[in-house]
């Protein structure tokens, strides 16, 4: 009886901790060579296995550009870009197992962070130059 009580208690505790935890412990993506170039052309971002394949991108500052986003996961993902202060500058539509093209407004020169809003551990950087 006591063992059963303890087991139920531990299960409940584990469930509550799962609900309360702020982020998963998924390992950070490794850096890969920059995608695209500072030409203002479209850049490609692939999401696969809960990671962005491209974790660094370079775009031309002051020019709008497109992101060809290919979500190869069944899980929903998007690309959301924020500036150095954390302010959001762009949020792409959240999609599952789908390719979409995001039209991103021109960015001032600088470094930006991009994440998947559903899985904030998925992240990378965009350099506008």
């Amino acid at each position, binding site marked *: *009886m006591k063992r*059963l*009580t303890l087991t*139920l208690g531990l*299960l*409940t505790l*584990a*469930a*509550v901790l*799962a*609900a*309360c*935890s*702020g*982020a*998963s*412990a*998924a390992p950070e993506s490794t850096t890969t060579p920059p995608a695209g170039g500072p030409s203002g052309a479209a850049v490609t971002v692939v999401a696969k296995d*809960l990671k962005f394949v491209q974790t660094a991108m370079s775009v031309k500052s002051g020019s709008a550009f497109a992101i060809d986003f290919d979500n190869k*996961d*069944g*899980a*929903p993902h*998007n690309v959301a870009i924020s500036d150095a202060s954390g302010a959001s500058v762009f949020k792409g539509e*959240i999609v599952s197992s789908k390719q979409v093209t995001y039209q991103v407004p021109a960015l001032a020169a600088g470094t930006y962070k991009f994440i998947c*809003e*559903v*899985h*904030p*551990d998925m992240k990378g950087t965009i350099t506008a130059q």
Partner: protein
Amino acid sequence: MFASRTSLRTADVVVRAAIVALALATGYIHYTLGGLLFTLNAVGYAVAAVSMIVPLALAVRFRWIVRIGLIGYAATAIVMWAVQGPYYSTAYVAKAIEVALIVLLAIDFARHDGSPIAVVRRELAAFTNLVARRGTAAAGA
């Protein structure tokens, strides 16, 4: 170990079935999101759903804790989502399910346990009796 059959009314069965269905539904949505956090969240909902109907005497005795726990669990999930998002269609569906789940759990609690204050008093009295009995048994040994 297993609880004897209790006379649940039709409305109780419907409410209980709806609670299980909603808990499994939001658990499934979280499972499809992938990642450790969402998977654990899904497991939590599945465990809670089973705990709501498992005919073990202990589970029946402490079903009120399961109800309160699941209300807190769903409320925490809603608050966490409200704070950090993301805000899109599937998330709104999951949160609507969780709100409905909380409402049904509150109804189930009221029908079976009554006032939360009465439950706390009852459990305190039961605990006091248990301690007193153990004290008497220890003194007699």
